[in-house]
């Protein structure tokens, strides 16, 4: 076994996993606040990446202006989706709400094809090009810097949700909506903010992932990998999202490198199936007790 190769693959996988963790965090924020499983998260990422393409490529803005604009655009999209399509579904069965997000995903794919055609696109490169070495291990610069930017936002989020008033409001709403409401927390605003912040994380990750791997209307399929991450980690667990994100990213890359690209999805879904049977609520998820 070639340990150097394994080390490089693992490193790339872990860096990718860092981005998965960021997307999964966005997913978990939305789930914690609104109990919505967001099948459209991959498409929200895709939409933000296309916005970046339009700002940086089409309008030729500096990438460092285009990036925040695209990310803000993505988070506005999340807020608008919540307000117009998720809010009316409040109190409906989870199946219905999930189907709404699937419908939203379809609409977004259609919109993107409508505006930017179905052809694959390359994002203008904005990350430094010098190769990165960690010890003797080579890491592609796009992945390395993507990981750094992603981790920065991840850490900001973790601190924000731990210490700020908004973060406390979110956690209070997650544990008991009625109690949070009676304590003066604007629950509806928390719902909306959760979608905005969740989409913001996803949007940034979307631009970073698209910068390394290219962009096409099929980009949203990454949402399936994120789904695996959050189920393995536990739908309502931020810690779970981080651990499972890194692990699944690593597993997917290693499986792809050693067994071939067609094994990426089956490998991660195998882990998913095992977790579902052994620990249905994920590694760190809350085990809900049901009463009649």
């Amino acid at each position, binding site marked *: 076994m070639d340990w150097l190769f394994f080390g490089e693959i693992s490193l790339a996988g872990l860096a990718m996993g860092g981005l998965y963790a960021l997307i999964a965090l966005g997913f978990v924020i939305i789930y914690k606040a609104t109990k919505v499983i967001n099948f459209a998260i991959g498409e929200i990422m895709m939409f933000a990446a296309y916005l970046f393409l339009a700002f940086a490529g089409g309008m030729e803005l500096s990438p460092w202006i285009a990036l925040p604009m695209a990310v803000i655009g993505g988070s506005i999209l999340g807020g608008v989706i919540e307000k117009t*399509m998720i809010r009316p579904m409040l109190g*409906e069965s989870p199946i219905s709400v999930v189907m*709404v997000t699937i419908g939203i995903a379809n609409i977004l*794919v259609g919109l993107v094809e409508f505006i930017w055609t179905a052809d694959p696109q390359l994002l203008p490169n904005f990350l430094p090009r010098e190769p990165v070495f960690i010890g003797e291990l080579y890491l592609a610069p796009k992945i390395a810097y993507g990981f750094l930017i992603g981790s920065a936002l991840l850490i900001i989020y973790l601190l924000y949700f731990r210490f700020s008033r908004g973060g406390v409001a979110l956690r209070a709403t997650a544990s008991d909506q009625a109690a949070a409401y009676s304590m003066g927390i604007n629950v509806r605003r928390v719902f909306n903010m959760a979608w905005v912040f969740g989409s913001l994380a996803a949007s940034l990750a979307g631009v970073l992932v698209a910068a390394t791997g290219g962009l096409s209307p099929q980009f949203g399929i990454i949402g399936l990998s994120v789904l695996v991450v959050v189920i393995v980690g536990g739908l309502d667990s931020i810690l779970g999202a981080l651990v499972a994100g890194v692990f699944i990213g690593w597993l997917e890359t290693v499986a792809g490198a050693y067994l071939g690209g067609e094994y990426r999805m089956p490998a991660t879904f195998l882990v998913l199936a095992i977790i*579902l049977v052994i620990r249905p609520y994920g590694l760190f998820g809350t085990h809900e007790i049901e009463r009649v």
Partner: protein
Amino acid sequence: MRIGDAKQSYEADEAIWTSQTQKFWLGLFLLILLVFPFVVNSYLLYLGCLVGIAVISTTGLNILTGFTGLISLGQAGFMGVGAYTVAWLSINTALPFPVTLLLAGLMAAAVGILVGLPSLRVKGLYLAIATLAASVFLHFIFAEWESVTGGMGGLSLEPAHLFGLTFQSDFRMYFIIVPLAVLMVLAARNVFRTRIGRAFIAIRDRDISAEILGINLLRYKLMSFALSSFYAGIAGGLFAYFYRVVTPESFPLSMSIFYLAAVIVGGMGNLLGGILGAAFMTLVPEALKLLTAALTPFYPNAPVFMSPMLEIIFGALIVGFLIFEPHGLAEIWHRIRRFFRLWPFRN
């Protein structure tokens, strides 16, 4: 004009055939189905066959999702199992089509039971994701088990045959597909007059209460999975005979979503809704294609926008129905019927 009918026994309430009027309209509908292939052109005939296949599969998913409350994202995978079974059997054996179709259904049911096993431990959206995992594995098997499935190239098969008769044209396939669809919908309707069907509904309404009432949850959930995948397997087998080529890409995840959408747009937990939904969701893209063809002389690049428009309309239909008409087309249908029933007293 029909005002109301007093039912005096439980049997009468459960009966499928309740009135002469209903029998008359159903008879007329069956007559139209019978005459249909003789009077329409080949394109409409093709659509008729597609709707028939979609009705079978949607009815199957409706049993699982609409009546038992278990969400499945694996319907396309189960159809694939049926289609590959039919393809493999017709290439490697000389069995006539009723046997291969039945085996396709049974094979899909067996896989369905296997996929349903996690429903012992997980439910709701977790179960949906377990079925998603199953569909990923099934797609992987279709693509990689080359000695049986032919890999990415798939399998091509001979037309269906029975007693020396071959069914190579859409016209002949119509007479397999549509009677089967009618039969299977009728069978599904009858299931819900038995203990099994009522157990499904009880599980949907509240599974814990159902268990307290003495319903063996695992057994009935697996039964629902088996029945639903049996329908999917038959639909997949018909699909194989209809297109006579089966590839892993014939049954993508988007197809599972399509059937879930058909159930929702039609009306969950309503067999009539399943039929309406299947027909509606199959015909909308075709209508859009016709519209595009009609617009092309005036807007030469209309075809470019057709595929994105289709995606947007598909998504908007799902979202729109769920927000504005959660009980689906079936509810609209009932509203129309009520109008005629109450006319002219209503206003």
